[in-house]
């Protein structure tokens, strides 16, 4: 068997990963810095973690953002996958052209516009602004992303598996659940993650459609920029990283032991 991949790919990939992680190391390193200023290292200290624990504003905003992001990502995946399947598989149904436009235009539309027009809609309909409206805004944007990703995956699909399942007597819904969905899964997960990140990071949309009492994390962080970001937010970032690393590691380990287990049973 030949080498798995040429060295240029490996080198560039390493550069890419390093690029992703340099700021993260900085963030984490300075979360343990005693001094407030990021340009000065004085000595090791955990004071910012203590400050974070006492910062109700940051904690509330974080929980709020995570909640909104989870809801938006889930909704976006459900609706977006439906759109992707409809567009990729069914070449002629009424309104197809319009659907195609409706899933791509949000990508092209400046967030200022989406946020603003949604605000007008909510005011016009008398919908109270809060978590619901922010979730709606993020989902709408997320649908566009999910559709693009899932469609790309569908495009590189091998339909023979589905056809085989159908030939064996599987009904459309069962074929979908047992064959199509698992094969689509990487695309769905990718779409979910993209929307989650979009929502977690969004500043503009939330600014427009949120209500009193729904401050999201980016808004709070951005508000603190003016007086200089205190390393509490570094501590927050470090905690996020630790939490996610542990969770993902556990999930992946479980999945591998599952597959190993299933393989062992064959």
């Amino acid at each position: 068997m030949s080498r798995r991949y040429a060295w240029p790919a490996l080198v560039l990939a390493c550069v890419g990963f390093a690029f992703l992680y340099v700021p993260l190391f900085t963030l984490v390193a300075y979360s343990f810095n005693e001094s407030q200023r990021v340009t000065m290292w004085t000595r090791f200290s955990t004071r910012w973690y203590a400050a974070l624990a006492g910062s109700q504003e940051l904690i509330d905003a974080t929980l709020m953002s995570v909640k909104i992001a989870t809801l938006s990502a889930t909704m976006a995946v459900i609706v977006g996958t439906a759109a992707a399947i409809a567009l990729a598989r069914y070449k002629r149904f009424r309104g197809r052209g319009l659907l195609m436009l409706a899933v791509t235009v949000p990508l092209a539309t400046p967030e200022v516009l989406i946020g603003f027009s949604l605000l007008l809609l909510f005011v016009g309909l008398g919908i109270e602004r809060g978590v619901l409206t922010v979730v709606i805004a993020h989902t709408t944007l997320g649908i566009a992303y999910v559709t693009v990703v899932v469609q790309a995956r569908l495009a590189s699909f091998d339909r023979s598996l589905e056809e085989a399942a159908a030939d064996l007597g599987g009904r459309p819904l069962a074929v979908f659940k047992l064959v199509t969905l698992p094969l689509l899964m990487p695309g769905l997960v990718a779409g979910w993650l993209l929307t989650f990140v979009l929502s977690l990071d969004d500043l503009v949309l939330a600014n427009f459609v949120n209500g009193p009492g729904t401050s999201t994390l980016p808004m709070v962080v951005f508000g603190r920029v003016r007086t200089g970001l205190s390393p509490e937010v570094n501590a927050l970032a470090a905690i996020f990283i630790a939490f996610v690393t542990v969770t993902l590691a556990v999930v992946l380990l479980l999945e591998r032991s599952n597959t190993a287990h299933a393989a062992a049973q064959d």
Partner: protein
Amino acid sequence: MSAGPRPVSPGSLIALPPVFWLGIFFVVPFLFVLMISLATPQIGRPPYVLGFSLDSYAAIFGDAKYLDALLNSLRLASLTTLLTLILGFPMAYVMARAAPGPRAVMLLLVFIPFWTASLLRIYAWMALLQEGGIVNRVLIMLGVIDRPLTLLYTTGSILVGMVYAYLPFMVLPLFAVLSRLDWRLLDAASDLGARPPVTFLRITLPLAAPGILAGSLLVFVPALGEFVVPELLGGQSGLMIGKLIWYEFFNSNDWPRAAALSVSFVVVILSLPLLGQLRGRRPEAGA
């Protein structure tokens, strides 16, 4: 599907949820904005009078600064897309070809930065690139330079920030497609005597095309309207169209003009692929 002709096609049915959602939460608001773009501004609530006036559009097409801002943004978005592709393709490729063990680790590594607010990571870059920041300190320590370089608030720092923010949006779609690739095709090609660059160009690249397209779409288009990154990391970078739209909405209180600018922007972007097709390029696959 094998069943006979039905009164309602399944495509219609499956399309119903997205159509419903996007209809009420995107199309209708967009139509509002279209209406406002044809209105005339006034002082009061709302700050416009509905009607039919093309004044706002005329003003936009008659003023060079709007075109300037658009070209500026196009330039930035193209560079960002190119750089994320160059950096992201090897990452996705290596991940897709890896054995399940290392692949899992790499997936982990790609996802972790995702979960820190991108705003924070941008601030980290600000700290890194400052005159008193780490990059300069290290370079001085190594003796490469004696006075700190101005790295921050330049076009370079904007690009760094943009690539950083948009990299995952290129890597994930690429990975989603590349992971479906049948690697035996590559092995077969090299067994037949093809050298690696050839295999890459003639086999890998075309098969990865849907992923490249998807990734480029998810980077280029939103990057066009981006203005948070240039705001924070930029200095004398000129006006971006996203910022211009912001100014029109907020500073000049001219909602019709802001609406007209946004609508024009969307129309221009949507017509870009059409222009591409007109010049004889391959139409988008599966999009």
